[in-house]
């Protein structure tokens, strides 16, 4: 690894562009779903507590259309609602009002099981810090999304390829506690891509990382867009903001 201050937009590992494209081309068909994620007039409000605290409106009347192959960055100060928008977009929480559309279908009409199934096929979510499962190796963490469909064995080679792609081919047997923050983020990104995700939702991927590690993450994210994957990223990293196709700045 190098300590470049600028993001390196070339593939971060010894794997080739072809491997990624091949994987992407076989799974993602961007032309079918030009707008995989759409947020329409979203308002997110958190209720007050029993102690009498007033409800807080974090996001009000927010709209966003995410196109295939586009990287959209949501920037803003801490507490401005970036993560809230991402969790709503990923279907992990529902907005107070407004609509979330996945490939044109509103989440309002879906049950929990359907949301889970659609999320698995459409969205890869990368939490702040990676949110890896302790006690499981990097490879196992990457394969976790394949468990519900019983495709762990079939996806194992792909998982290894993805870990190679993010530069962790030699650390796939390590556990989260044995990985650095940047490595954990990259494992999380690989995990988010394992099922052929069309939308990558990434929360603060470079926070608390050194510049070199941050640049490596940014380059991986940028690479995915070239495969038609839409990336929705929340960050106040200037480099990430600069390289994003579109930007929303929350006040």
């Amino acid at each position, binding site marked *: 690894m190098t300590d470049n201050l600028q993001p390196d937009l070339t593939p971060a590992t010894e794997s080739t562009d072809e491997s990624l494209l091949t994987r992407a081309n076989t799974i993602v068909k961007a032309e079918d779903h030009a707008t995989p994620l759409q947020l329409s007039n979203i308002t997110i409000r958190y209720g007050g507590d029993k102690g009498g605290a007033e409800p807080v409106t974090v996001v009000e009347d927010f709209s966003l259309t995410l196109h295939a192959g586009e990287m959209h960055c949501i920037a803003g100060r801490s507490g401005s609602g970036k993560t809230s928008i991402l969790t709503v977009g990923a279907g992990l929480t529902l907005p107070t009002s407004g609509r979330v559309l996945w490939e044109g279908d509103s989440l309002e009409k879906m049950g929990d099981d359907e949301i889970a199934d659609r999320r698995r096929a459409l*969205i890869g979510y990368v*939490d702040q810090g990676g949110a890896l499962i302790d006690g499981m190796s990097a490879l196992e963490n990457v394969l976790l999304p394949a468990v519900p469909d019983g495709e762990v064995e079939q996806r194992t080679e792909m998982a290894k390829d993805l870990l190679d792609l993010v530069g962790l081919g030699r650390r796939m047997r390590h556990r989260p506690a044995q990985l650095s923050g940047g490595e954990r983020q990259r494992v999380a990104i690989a995990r988010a891509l394992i*099922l052929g995700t069309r939308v990558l939702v990434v929360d603060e991927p470079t926070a608390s990382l050194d510049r070199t590690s941050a640049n490596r993450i940014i380059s991986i994210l940028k690479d995915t867009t070239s495969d038609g994957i839409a990336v929705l990223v929340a960050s106040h990293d200037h480099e990430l903001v600069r390289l994003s196709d579109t930007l929303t700045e929350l006040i």
Partner: protein
Amino acid sequence: MNAVQRFIRSRVLLLTAAILIVAMCMSVFIQSQSQAALNRTVDENSRGLYDILVQAKAGNTKDGGALIQPDIANGQGGISFQQLEKIRGLGGTSVAAPISLVSRVTQNLEAPRLDAMDYLGYNAGLAGGATAGDPTGTDSKKWPAPESVLPAQPKKYRLTATAVSSDGVSQQTLFQASAEGTLGKGQVVEQQTAGGKSIRIAGPAGETGIKFPAPAGGSEHNLFNLSVALPMAPQVTESVVAVDPAAERALLGSAGDFLAPLEKAPPVDTRNAGAIGRYFEQLFAKSPTQQELEQGPDFLGVKLKYWAPLMTQYQQAKLSGQITDASQAIPLIVRQGTSLDLKYSVKIQEIDDSGKVVNDVGTVSRSLDKDYLPFVSKSPFALEWPGSTDHSQLLGNTGNFGQGLYQPAQWSTDFAAAPKYKDGEASANGAVGKSAMPGDWVTVNKLPEKSAFGAMVDQAQRKPVDERSYRENLSTGSKRATPLPMVYGTFDPAQIQKAAGDVNKLPLGGYDPAPMTLQKDAAGNDTAAKGLKPSLSATGLVSQSAGAITDYYGLAAARGYDSNANVIDAVRVRASAPGNWKQAQPDVDKLAAQIRDMGLEATVVAGSAREDANIFVPGYSKDDAGKESDLGTVVQSWVRQDAADAVSGSLTSTNITLLFLTLCGATLLTGASTVSYIRQRRSEAGILRAMGWTQKRVRRWVLEEFGIGAAILAVAGIALSLLSWNLATVIVSASVLLIYFAAAYFAAQQLRHRDVVDQEPQHDERLIAVDSPLTFAYRQLVTNRFNSVALAVAVGVFGAAVGALIALLIDIPRAAGASALSGLASATIALPSVTLAVCGVLVGLVLTLVTGRFELRAKREQLGTLKAMGWNPDMLGQVRFFENALVGTAALVLGVLGALGLGLLLAPYAALWAALAGLLAVLCWIPIATKVVK
């Protein structure tokens, strides 16, 4: 931030201390309430009709806590009237009620007869005088037309009389006798005699009549019936008990009001049987009024309702020369009805000359039932020919005055040997098994040597039957002479039993019997519980209410004493000390000591209770060859001495054990939760170490926080101890505190520095691949071994504690013992005990869940991650379930084995139930914990 602030900040410690204090308060409160209720129940129910049973020295020596045989009126006597008066004179005596067995009395019921309707219609010569002036008679013009069940031409009949008695297990035919002859419709015969015409009733020409062997007199026609004299009914043996009517009424309360006539009984010097008989003869010579006849003539202030038997017996005794100047009349209150099973039946068959049955007319029967009164009969023992109507009422009530006994009762003070009892093994619930050692056989069902009229009796018609008798031999009295029974009224044994109460009732032998129930046959096989009915050929073990109660003058008369001797079998003493048993105990003990100082045996029966004794009865019946057969095992209510102390002591210890178990279980789980909590503080400890704190200082830092919790617990414990003023509370509080300290020390030790990252091994390829919620859950538990084991131990301890609590609850009736008091007492503490156990289970459950909740934040993040990866709600639920199921599976071993071990230690009889309860508790924990994590 000081230790108090840190303690408050660390919610878990605060919550744990709070839960422990609440558990302590609730447990101690419930336990103290339960204890109070137990004491109240035991005290209130341990003082019955009387407090002390006084018997003659060496008459019945008993060890403390032994079972008292249900027979204290045993005919042994030994206590004098002077001693009775001395007992009454003691300051602490409220009531001293003597009781004695007077005698056995054998009597024949009367001469039974079979009445066949043979009504000849109104005939002034036969009936005119009988109805004159009798308002209850029917006007002669309204008499119905003659009718008869007998044929105009005599037919040959065979009558078969049978008497059968049954104790409910075996049936004994006491006798069976047949007689044949011709019977036909009667007719009025007018004969010309020297002084004019005479009218008589006669049978049709050719009628032979039917005659059973002597003393039966044969058949005869009368105005309304053809009467056939039947063989005598079997003799019935009754016992007579003597009491002091005034003391007995004081003892029994209103249930003893039946004794009032005895208090008015004529004084001893006016009881000469001959004088009384002559008084009645003189009374009847003046033609008593109808009202006097119905209600009984007034004899020295006593309405003698049942006067007919006295008169009958007086006249017969006078005729046979049995009555002497020394003969006395004995005042009696007789038992209502009888439970003696005796059925007398007559089978009527029409036969031809060859003896072949040509028509079965029918069988009529009569039993000794509630219409029967010992010593007196309310109606003649007559059987009705099938199809008969009794027209004798046409004459009015006058016709019934002849009712009563026809044979004088045979009074006897000879008692056969009573059975002795030998203790066997005690059963699980403390009930004692016993074996009866049979007494002597006595012969019953004999006929009298002579009939009432002096004629010899044909003894061949009756086969004597051997039965066991149940009284000691007694040789007392000097001047035996035939006494006459004077029946003043009746008593209902059930009323007396009711008044005696259910718990501290001491059976009084023949006066207040304790029935027996057969539970196992002679081969030891279980039988349907069957109460043994008193019968004429019974074992003698089956007691029956006294046939009659008399007063002490009657006792002396029956035994032939001129003056009162040591004839009192027992004295029942009620102490004047008021209040419940505990309050009165010192005074009762003091009174008992004073009575013992008089040279008498004084058994304190207050604090005793009924208890069923299993008795094996050998030599129950004897066949013609003289071979004896066993009955089997019967259950009879005896009395357990000192039952109150035993019940109170064992239930108190059970209760306290329950309390300990509840709190110790909670405390152990507190330890487990504390350890889990410490793991949460490990990073904080690492920071402090980084700041230069030593291990020792870090430990002190932790212990200070626990010290606050311990101080709060100590304050709570002291406050509770002072409030309850109970040693158990002090011990429980101290135990909780001790275990809390131990948990704290152990927790502090866990904060030693560990190089978590560096020491973490690389991924082990041997681990099961994660490809399902089950394998995911397994991997998580393996990764967090310490937490998993801590939780499994907590759940296991929880299961073991539940098992032990259940074992104790199940064991309460056994621990309480087998007496009736134990049933009441265990019922009293059942609810508080269940509440206490439920409280303990809930505390344990809450604490296991609290232990689980320490990992909740990490789990929530983990589940959030899985959700973000597209795991649907079902799969997330499976992850939660499998995690808890695996913990529960690991905990099962500890839970079941722990419950079994504790069960064996605390209540061996319920150990298997404890293991089952432990298993269920752990299995139930799984879904509950799954729900909580959700």
